[in-house]
């Protein structure tokens, strides 16, 4: 048992810091600071992604032969930490975190050769077509039909909650290729060009008034069967593999640290009763201390998981625990930040969140993204498996441990 970093890790941290100092433009840093969800402003994300690519760091989780890295779990965590501390924008997680590992695992040689470099370079921007209006938590009930006609699939139906579809040129999606007793058994995984005829991308306005999600409609869209990943009807297996990856590849504590540090900044100026700043109000600090302790507990749990992953690979139900705890704690910190924002949560000033914007805004600039982030993060316990579904998974694991 030890908490120390190796000399290599410490050197690595310095290397990352040095890289970020030179690579991050003020525009990117503003985009990072003004982030209000898991995505940052699109152009800034892409620029950062390209800078990472130039450095060979675009896809830490991929293996070296495909342009990834040989970093340890701890180095990945250090990388993530330093990016957040330097206010980097979020990188495009969909192609790299989600699709890439699936192509590496299930793709043909040709698919790997063509698609992986285009993900790294941002030549392709991917979105994920999983959920449908009638298939949310119950993803396996998805209905979007892919009928085999000659060597093509003909797609009809729609996908919803496809993040960034309005920026993407490609979508990977799950489609129904067979009716079967067990709905999971009739699903295939397709890679679709979004500029194909018959596809309509319809943006969904979020609570903060911005667009991150879309609904995508398919009407007789013909997709060549060579655009299938894996075998026909193997889609569910691929998606399961991917879902596990999605949950494993993130460090919640890093984002929570950033929220905590913003809260402390806000609390140093915002006044509690009698013109005393909140940071000197014992009732406030007692509450903040509790949340900080909870954050520490999550942080060390994430380390425990990471060091275990190094040996065993699959995160399993522990990743559900980290997702539930991380998102619910993030929401608690969002609520606290909103309270510190006080009356200034009211002005609607989305334009101030644009990384190009450098003018004045209403209220302290330190909390400018707080209200929008609060609204957006209500979805964090819904997407990627609701908190209810995650708790079902955890309970099943605990019961199974007892052999029941």
């Amino acid at each position, binding site marked *: 048992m030890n908490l120390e970093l190796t000399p290599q890790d410490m050197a690595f941290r310095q290397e990352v810091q040095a890289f970020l100092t030179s690579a991050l433009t003020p525009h990117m840093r503003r985009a990072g600071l003004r982030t209000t969800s898991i995505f940052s402003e699109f152009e800034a994300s892409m620029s950062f992604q390209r800078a990472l690519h130039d450095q060979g760091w675009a896809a830490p989780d991929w293996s070296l032969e495909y342009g990834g890295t040989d970093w340890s779990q701890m180095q990945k965590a250090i990388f993530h930490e330093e990016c957040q501390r330097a206010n980097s924008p979020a990188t495009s997680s969909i192609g790299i975190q989600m699709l890439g590992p699936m192509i590496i695992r299930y793709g043909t040689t040709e698919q790997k050769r063509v698609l992986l470099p285009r993900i790294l370079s941002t030549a392709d921007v991917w979105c994920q077509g999983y*959920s449908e209006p*009638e*298939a*949310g*938590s*119950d993803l396996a*009930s998805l209905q979007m039909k892919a009928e085999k006609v000659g060597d093509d699939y003909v797609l009809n139906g729609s996908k*919803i*909650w496809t993040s960034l579809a309005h920026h993407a040129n490609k979508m990977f999606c799950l489609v129904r290729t067979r009716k079967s007793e067990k709905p999971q058994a009739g699903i295939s995984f397709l890679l679709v060009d979004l500029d194909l005829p018959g596809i309509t991308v319809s943006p*969904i*306005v*979020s*609570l903060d*008034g911005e667009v991150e*999600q879309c609904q995508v409609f398919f009407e007789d869209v013909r997709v060549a069967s060579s655009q299938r990943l894996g075998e026909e009807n193997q889609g569910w297996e691929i998606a399961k593999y991917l879902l596990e990856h999605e949950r494993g590849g993130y460090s919640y504590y890093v984002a929570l640290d950033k929220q905590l540090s913003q809260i402390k900044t806000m609390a140093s100026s*915002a*006044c*509690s*009763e009698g*013109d005393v700043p909140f940071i000197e*109000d014992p*009732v*406030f600090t007692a509450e903040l201390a509790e949340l900080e302790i909870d954050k520490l507990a999550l942080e060390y749990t994430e380390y425990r998981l990471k060091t275990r992953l190094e040996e065993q690979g699959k995160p399993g139900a522990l990743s559900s625990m980290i997702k539930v705890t991380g998102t619910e704690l993030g*929401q608690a910190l969002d*609520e606290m930040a*909103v*309270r510190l*924002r*006080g*009356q*200034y*949560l*009211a*002005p*609607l*000033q989305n334009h101030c969140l644009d990384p190009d914007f450098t003018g004045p805004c*209403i*209220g302290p600039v330190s909390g400018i993204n707080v*209200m929008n982030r*609060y*609204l*957006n993060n*209500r*979805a964090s*316990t*819904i*997407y990627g498996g*609701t*908190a*209810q579904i995650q*708790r079902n998974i955890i309970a099943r694991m605990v019961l199974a441990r007892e052999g029941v």
Partner: protein
Amino acid sequence: MNFDLSEEQHALRESLHSYLRNNYQFEQRQATVAGPEPFNRALWQECADLGWLALPFAPEQGGLGGSAIELMLLFEQCGRFLVVEPFLETVLMAGGVLKRLRGNDIDTRLNAIIAGRTQGALAHGEPQHCDERGSVRCTATYQGGAFALSGRKAVIYNAPTADFFIVSATAGAVAPGLARGDLCLFLVDSHQPGLALTPYQTVDGRCAAEVNLNGASVDSRLLLCSGDKAEQLIRSVFDDVALALAAESIGAMDVLVSETARYISHRKQFGQPIAEFQSLQHSLADMYMASELARSLVYAAAIKLRDGAQDASLFLAAAKAKADKSAVFVAHNAIQLHGGIATTDELKIGHYLKRITVSANLYGSRASRVRRFWQARCEPSKQSSSPELAA
């Protein structure tokens, strides 16, 4: 003791509800919010014609003499329908200051409010305030029959459409009848030189502004009141505000509970309505309980306020604190149970969360209300030893 509405109160609730049901569907509300005007002026005029703007004013002021109960009924419906029209700002806040004063000028303005012909705003909040009892840094400097007002007022709802403002400031130099540091309330015209607005829309679909006062010179006859009386007046107005916002929240919670129950009954996943899932049932039960418990306390506070009970402020602090906490809880759960669809601008659910969040933070933090409740609770002289049945 009883919690029944009188026949007249029933009728008022019924007419408010049926008018809004016919004129304030969510789509209509969103059209207003998206439109060029900050609110629906035609609808405002209809509300005036229906007498609703007259509710809180005394008959001798041309009003209907409605009590705190009637106010609660009005704002409960405003909360249900997410009404963006400035009942709170013009009628209860600006009007609420004026109705507590006397004078011909004042009666004229009240008449204009009641008739729907004028808009007002109470410019009291400042950037550093955690509630309305925070110290006022705007200053009023007396110079030869006039006061020069300087300072900044923060997040003043309805300011962009206001024809007049009630502005609070502290006396900065010796003036007739004033001590240095006395709180003063001024009536300021929206065209007053030295008064400048930075207007904006708000997250809850209304308009507001930062109000800057740069030595605005106001005739001393427009000093409405000062000192302890002004302090007391501000407190009374904000007691009404607390009740109104708490009542809005119980209206909002009612809708959120109903909508959620209906949604989970119809939405199917895993081959069954999701209402079959026990964890969702329990969330729904908790939402309902939160809503009903808050409602009880808001009723109690309204009655205490109507009766001028000594512990009315204590009850208002408790009711608002409870309503805020409950409403946030209910809104969060409503979103969670609806799933992704409730995180969109299209569904009304999330708009309730926005209003509830503003309501819980705009005129004072929840923590300060809880503290205020506790302080009042610890002053045995000011109230009976227990607010329960004790005679």
